[in-house]
């Protein structure tokens, strides 16, 4: 579980995060949604310590405050974190296999055979086969994301962070990636936090949804509650497209009819 308490972050005079507080539960897909520039990525990078915050607390597993932790503690905690970056962030010069094996080489004393077994296990888990020797530039966008996920889970992390996992992917591949993230979260009971503005992802995997608007928390809840949310900014964001607007109207009409009966 990760708790964020009263998090503030400014770049110069511009305040990006304004007193954000949220609780990301273990074993659930926690989604951070919001328009471009709302502070999603800054919030996620603050939680993993890539961006220093001005004030607030980030508490991992009830007792470890990531803000006031020393270097050694930070490194130890980071070994429990896996992250899928927006552009996958695979090491260009390394093959798929070497990308995935890298954390094992760096932090474990496993034999080569054990490491390869784990690498192949993770690649199979993300439905990738016979790609071990390929370089990242020989992979499609969806395959890169899956290799990124394989690398993120190879150390059995407790926390998985995904920064816009569907960006640049077609709808079909996006669904595959969403399902994969959801399955991994359920199987390994990890705390997953996903940054997205893809509404399909919200509706498919959002166990807990945090909506940011101009750096502030405007709404939080389960994906099922979104349909009935009264928050104007959330509705403007979610139902910006005709498809979702029609669903919303149908839903409102259905509820109204049920109430009248």
């Amino acid at each position, binding site marked *: 579980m990760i708790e964020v308490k009263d998090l503030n972050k400014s770049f110069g005079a511009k305040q990006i995060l304004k007193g954000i507080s949220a609780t990301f539960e273990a074993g659930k897909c926690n989604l951070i949604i919001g328009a471009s520039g709302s502070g999603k990525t800054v919030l996620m*990078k603050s939680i*993993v*310590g*890539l*961006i*220093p915050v001005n004030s607030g607390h980030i508490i991992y597993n009830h007792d470890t405050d990531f803000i006031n932790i*020393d*270097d050694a503690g*930070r*490194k*130890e905690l*980071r*070994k429990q*974190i*896996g*992250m899928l*970056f*927006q*552009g996958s*962030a*695979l*090491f*260009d010069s390394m093959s798929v296999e070497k990308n995935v094996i*890298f*954390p094992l*080489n*760096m*932090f474990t004393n496993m034999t080569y055979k054990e490491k390869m077994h784990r690498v192949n296990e993770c690649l199979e888990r993300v439905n990738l086969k016979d790609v071990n020797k390929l370089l990242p530039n020989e992979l499609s966008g969806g395959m890169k994301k899956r290799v990124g996920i394989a690398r993120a889970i190879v*150390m059995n992390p407790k926390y998985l*962070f995904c920064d816009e996992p569907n960006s640049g992917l077609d709808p079909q591949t996006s669904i595959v990636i969403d399902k994969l993230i959801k399955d991994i979260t359920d199987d390994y009971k990890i705390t997953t936090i996903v940054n997205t503005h893809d509404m399909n992802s919200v509706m498919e995997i959002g166990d807990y949804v945090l909506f940011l608007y101009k750096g502030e928390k405007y709404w939080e809840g389960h994906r099922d509650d979104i349909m009935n949310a009264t928050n104007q900014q959330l509705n403007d964001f979610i139902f910006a497209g005709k498809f979702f607007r029609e669903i919303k109207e149908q839903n409102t009409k259905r509820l109204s009819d049920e109430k009248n009966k």
Partner: protein
Amino acid sequence: MSQYINTCILLPNHHFTTSSNHSVAFFNHFGRYVLLLRSLFVRPEKTSIYWKEIARQMVEIGVGSVGIVVIVSCFLGAVVTVQTAYQLTTPLISKSIIGSIAANSIILELAPTVTVLILAGKIGSKIASELGTMRISEQIDALEIMGVHSSAYLVLPKILASTLMIPLLVIISAFLSIYAGMWVGEFTGVVSKEDFMTGAIQYWIPFMASFALIKATTFGFIISSVSSYFGYYTEGGALEVGKSATRAVVVCCVLILLFDYILAQLLL
């Protein structure tokens, strides 16, 4: 904590617009450069991985630069011999002086400085653009998230490899330049091989070799550390990677010339 601060501090592509801020910019860059160097002194996550990375960098920086060093050195030696001969037209001066002047110029200046200036372009731009691309494509962030000390893992092997390999390249360069000069002198008829070598040996001072190696080691450190600094703190996109690489090469060249003078003043 220092690594955390180091990762998050202001990046070098920030612009300082007014002239009064130039000195602030200089100290800002210098301070962050020192912080980067300080952050390299940490216990490696796994020593064997670091050794492999150092070996890989030694091959890339050293072996990868042999070709350009061979070409540059041969022409340097040839040109310095022909030009020295052109200036010494009087029959009162022995022909062997050509060999002496050529060899001394090569060992004192041309091999350790001119060759290294060429290497600054090749190695400096490679290091800065490699690290810059890793920064903007979030590969450095990925290392940090894994718990790897990114600056130590990426920068330290480059500095060690460069500081070890550039003196070796300078030795190769000096030998090749002298041999090229000797053969060009023979072929063009301006000085015979025997006269050239007689002059080169007659006025040989052993300290010149030490001086050349001190210079090469210093320049090797400058090239790798300065280029790493500009690459590691790149901020923005592809355009900024190019700017970082250009800045790295320009600053390296200026620092090499500055330290060339300082070392000459101090040691000769």
